[in-house]
């Protein structure tokens, strides 16, 4: 039973450098929270404040109902995996794993039992007598992970633990991490700037930018209902198409097309319209298109293997390009394309504040086959 709460955390280095401005969130038992955001948005700073390696300027860190803000890292019952692994170079793997337990005066029988258990399932058994210098990157990563696991802490903290691994190994370890932490009833806070990691691992994702929490939701909802323009542009690859449009009454003007706003919206003077490239559909003949169709000249085709990323210049605009993801098996080799923008996949944001303009009921829409695409 453990719970981590952050209450109005703020970290001010200098009046100009304030990586974390006001952050509050809860992580419950068995929850896997990922802090996601662009480089320099304060993810590591937040994690270090939770660990106690950095003192917050304002606000509190609460573990299991107890305010630990002024406690030393060693007294908080947390374990952390560092990006650089930070293994002790002069100790063997066994001593690396045991050091945190020995400091807590745990009987050596119990230490041996825990290490045997963890090393068995991380495959470290044959490496126990080696020094970190004699290990490969992937093995070091495992030892670092093992060192956190043997502690059986109240909260796990991981700061980009996979970023030093090559792509193939990263995928493999990612899957292992998922199964390890799924079986454990301990809150996990995981820092990454890799969307795939965030989407595949977490039960909740916190998108950070500019020192503020932008959105805190399960991965699927972050993808289907971005809370604002920033999240919409940051999550998903290829990036969402975002257009700043003038409104004429209840319709937004996109080139020659006029797109009605949903009835639930009180239209501001200008709106931002968003649609993901994978949701833009190719229309074979103009009549049978679902939603609103736009036409344009093809200006760029990028082959992504499974599909083509096609950019068109929308007719009736100067430079507005729309990107669409078209499955490679669809024939479309024309110079001019007609694409449709299905109404259920349109995202509307206030162009001024960037906030999402309407939100559907919180329950998730039933999954539809075309939404199954992995977000990468």
């Amino acid at each position: 039973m453990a719970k981590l709460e952050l209450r109005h955390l703020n970290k001010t280095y200098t009046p100009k450098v304030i990586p974390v401005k006001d952050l509050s969130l809860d992580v419950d038992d068995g929850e896997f929270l990922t802090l996601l955001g662009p480089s320099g948005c304060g993810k590591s700073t937040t994690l270090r404040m939770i660990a106690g390696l950095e003192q917050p300027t304002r606000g509190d860190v609460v573990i299991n109902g107890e305010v630990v803000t002024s406690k030393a890292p060693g007294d908080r019952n947390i374990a952390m995996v560092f990006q650089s692994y930070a293994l002790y170079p002069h100790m063997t793997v066994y001593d690396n794993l045991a050091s945190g337990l020995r400091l807590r005066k745990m009987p050596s029988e119990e230490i041996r039992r825990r290490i045997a258990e963890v090393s068995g399932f991380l495959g470290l058994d044959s490496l126990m007598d080696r020094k970190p210098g004699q290990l490969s990157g992937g093995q070091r990563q495992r030892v670092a992970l093992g060192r956190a696991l043997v502690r059986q802490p109240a909260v796990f903290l991981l700061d980009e633990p996979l970023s030093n691994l090559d792509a193939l190994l990263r995928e493999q370890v990612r899957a292992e991490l998922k199964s390890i932490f799924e079986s454990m009833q301990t809150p996990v806070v995981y820092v990454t700037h890799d969307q795939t990691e965030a989407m595949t691992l977490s039960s909740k994702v916190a998108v950070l930018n500019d020192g503020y929490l932008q959105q805190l939701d399960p991965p699927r909802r972050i993808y289907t209902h971005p809370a604002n323009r920033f999240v919409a542009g940051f999550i998903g690859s290829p990036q969402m198409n975002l257009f700043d449009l003038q409104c004429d009454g209840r319709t937004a003007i996109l080139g020659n097309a006029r797109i009605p706003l949903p009835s639930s919206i009180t239209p501001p003077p200008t709106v931002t319209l968003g649609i993901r490239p994978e949701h833009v559909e190719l229309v074979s003949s103009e009549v049978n298109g679902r939603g609103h169709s736009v036409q344009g000249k093809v200006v760029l085709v990028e082959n992504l293997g499974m599909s083509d990323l096609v950019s068109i210049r929308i007719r009736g605009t100067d430079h507005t390009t729309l990107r669409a993801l078209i499955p490679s098996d669809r024939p479309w080799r024309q110079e001019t394309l007609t694409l449709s923008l299905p109404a259920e996949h349109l995202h509307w944001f206030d162009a001024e504040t960037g906030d999402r303009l309407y939100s559907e009921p919180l329950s998730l829409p039933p999954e539809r086959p075309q939404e199954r695409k992995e977000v990468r």
Partner: protein
Amino acid sequence: MTTVHPPAHPPAHAEARPSRFSARTLWLTVAVVLVVLFSLAPILWQVLTSIKVNADIAAIPNVYFPRRFTLQHYIEIFNRRPFLNYMLNSFFVAFTSTLLCLALGTPAAYALARLRLPGERIVLASVLIVTLFPYILLFIGLLEIVRATGLANNYLALIIPYTAINIPLTILVMRSFFQQLPRDLEDSAKVDGYNTWQMLVRILLPLTTPALVTTGILAFIAAWNEFIFALTFITRESMKTIPVAVAQISGTAVFEIPYGALAAATVVGTLPLVILVLLFQRRIVQGLTAGAVKG
């Protein structure tokens, strides 16, 4: 371009290689021998002189490689003069000041490397400037201080200045060493539950041993060899250090310079340093190259 080019040089070339290689080896060997001779010649000469009999030392033409060997000079310096005593004095002074240097300089270096201190640059700059001070200026000032405090004929009069003079070097070397230790390592130790003292002793110290040994030896050599302070501040015979004692050997006889005893004393005075360096050689090399590659 991904065209594959055939190798530019046909492998037939390889036959010519061994002879060229051996010529290079030859030149290299000659050069190494010359350099070694050049730097070791004075020491070699001292060693040879110290085991020659007096007649050979004074002989004209020079006897370079003696036929008759004697340990007379060594016996002389230990029997007629308290040479063992001098060595112990030197050792005590050099060892204590080295320990003080490391004990005071290492925490300072750590603070300068890790903590964001106000005025850090000023502190560093002044540490550097201290090392640039002309030695002789320091000496005149120190003489006054020693007189005023009545520290003459007290080991403190040597230990304190030696420590002070060597501390800047300790701070600079240790600081650059601490700087290239990954910061995460300390953070990870803190999360593991090490308190500051345990972290210093169990994590940082084992990792810094090479640097400690290197700077320690440098400080020790400087203190062991120092002459002017030792000559001036210590006048009591039983407290003198090796460099002073060696210099005094030539001063005792008016009519002839006792080259043999002098050479023996020099060898005896240098030997401990040589042994020390050889003992820690591996560690020193580690320490000197520690900054070269990211660990």
